[in-house]
């Protein structure tokens, strides 16, 4: 009959026996107990079990377990002392691997630089062409005939000669300046988007020669490959460190257990 008691009933019985019930729980349980012979019988049995367990003979201690300096001189093997270091190294390298993989493979982080850089190129080229046609400057008189204001550069910071070629140089007629400003804004907008993505340094106010500009998409993709391949190399390295440190810690622990 008592087999029909639920696990909760058995727990209540055990708690009641050890006086672990709150006062309202206890009074409710005692009311149930009065009306249920099954519960009474189960309570009696569990009480006997507890009594029996309390009577379990105690073992005599075979000898004193006091420590001697000799016992304490036994040093922990080096491999065991390195377990925490291996474990921490493995954990840190694992976290770094995950972060690098997020930056490498998640669309929100990885796809931005290349996808945004691609459409920027035709704008640059068309602007360059337009400027070349409309600019009243004697383009043959300067060593940088195809300089375009507001272009995106990816390589070295502008030198003195670049600094001389600012948008003001193209403001000899109002339309050219207006075009240049529109384009500058356009490129500005795009360069802001690209700056954070691939880590390249962009300078809105700098100009670069046309022949350098022509292969900008190509340059961008080449420049983008370098950090990308670096990241992948880091991922491989951190993965290897994670695995090797984890294995080293595991082997050291196994030695301890054996």
């Amino acid at each position, binding site marked *: 009959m008592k087999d029909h008691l639920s*696990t909760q009933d*058995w*727990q209540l*019985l*055990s*708690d009641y026996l*050890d006086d*672990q019930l709150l006062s309202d729980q206890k009074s409710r349980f005692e009311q149930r107990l009065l009306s249920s012979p099954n519960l009474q019988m189960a309570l009696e*049995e*569990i009480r*006997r*079990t*507890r*009594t*029996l*367990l*309390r*009577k*379990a*003979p*105690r*073992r*005599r*201690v*075979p*000898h*004193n*377990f*006091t*420590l001697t*300096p000799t*016992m*304490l001189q036994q040093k922990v093997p080096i491999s065991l002392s390195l377990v925490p270091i291996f474990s921490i190294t493995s954990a840190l390298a694992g976290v770094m691997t995950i972060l690098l993989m997020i930056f490498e493979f998640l669309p929100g982080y990885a796809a931005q630089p290349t996808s945004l850089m691609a459409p920027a190129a035709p704008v640059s080229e068309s602007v360059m062409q337009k400027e070349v046609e409309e600019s009243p400057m004697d383009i043959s008189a300067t060593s940088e005939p195809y300089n375009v204001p507001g272009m995106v550069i990816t390589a070295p910071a502008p030198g003195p000669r670049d600094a001389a070629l600012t948008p003001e140089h193209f403001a000899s007629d109002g339309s050219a300046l207006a075009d240049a400003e529109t384009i500058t804004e356009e490129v500005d907008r795009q360069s802001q988007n690209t700056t954070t993505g691939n880590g390249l340094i962009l300078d809105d106010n700098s100009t670069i020669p046309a022949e350098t500009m022509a292969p900008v998409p190509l340059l961008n993709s080449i420049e983008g490959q370098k950090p990308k391949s670096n990241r992948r190399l880091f991922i491989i390295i951190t993965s290897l460190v994670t695995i090797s440190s984890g294995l080293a810690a595991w082997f050291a622990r196994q030695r301890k*257990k*054996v």
Partner: protein
Amino acid sequence: MDETKLALAAQQGDLDAFNRLVLVYQDMAYNLAYRMLSDEAAAEDATQMAFISAYRNLKGYRGGSFRSWIMRIVTNQCYDELRRFKKHPTVPLESCNCEDKEDIESSHWLADDSNSPEEAYARAELDRAIQHCLNNLPEDFRSVVILVDLEGQNYHDTASIINKPLGTVKSRLARARTHLQECLNRFGELLPANFRLMGEGNT
């Protein structure tokens, strides 16, 4: 000197102070280890290792009940030993049955040797039955019922020793008692009359 002062002295490197604490708790530690591992030699090793480990990690003791702290180390040492047994099972050189019979006949291991031979025999039978039933319990239930019912720890200390919430202690204890009750009932007539769960001879 109370145990907190002894523990603080031990933290400063006073081995004698630590050994005084060892003498206080070695009986409880050894009995806990024996009930967990069901093997005298393993219990002896586990107890010694636990005290060595406790001394080396005294910095981890931050006041409170030293008994709970040291019993937690013993319990963890027993869990380690049980895991090791599972991975690398060993067979003792002597037959277990012979050893049991010898134990029952001599009862040299009983802490209380004031009993008559008949009484000693009855207690040895009871010990065998309880240990058999404890061995059939999952380790987590076993540790709780040993601490509460055999070692007389209260619920809060037990929760501290096994590092689990009070509710977990209560539920594990209830389930362990239910299992033990069923198991000890199966022993029935095999137990001496005054130790049987069923019948009029129960205490």
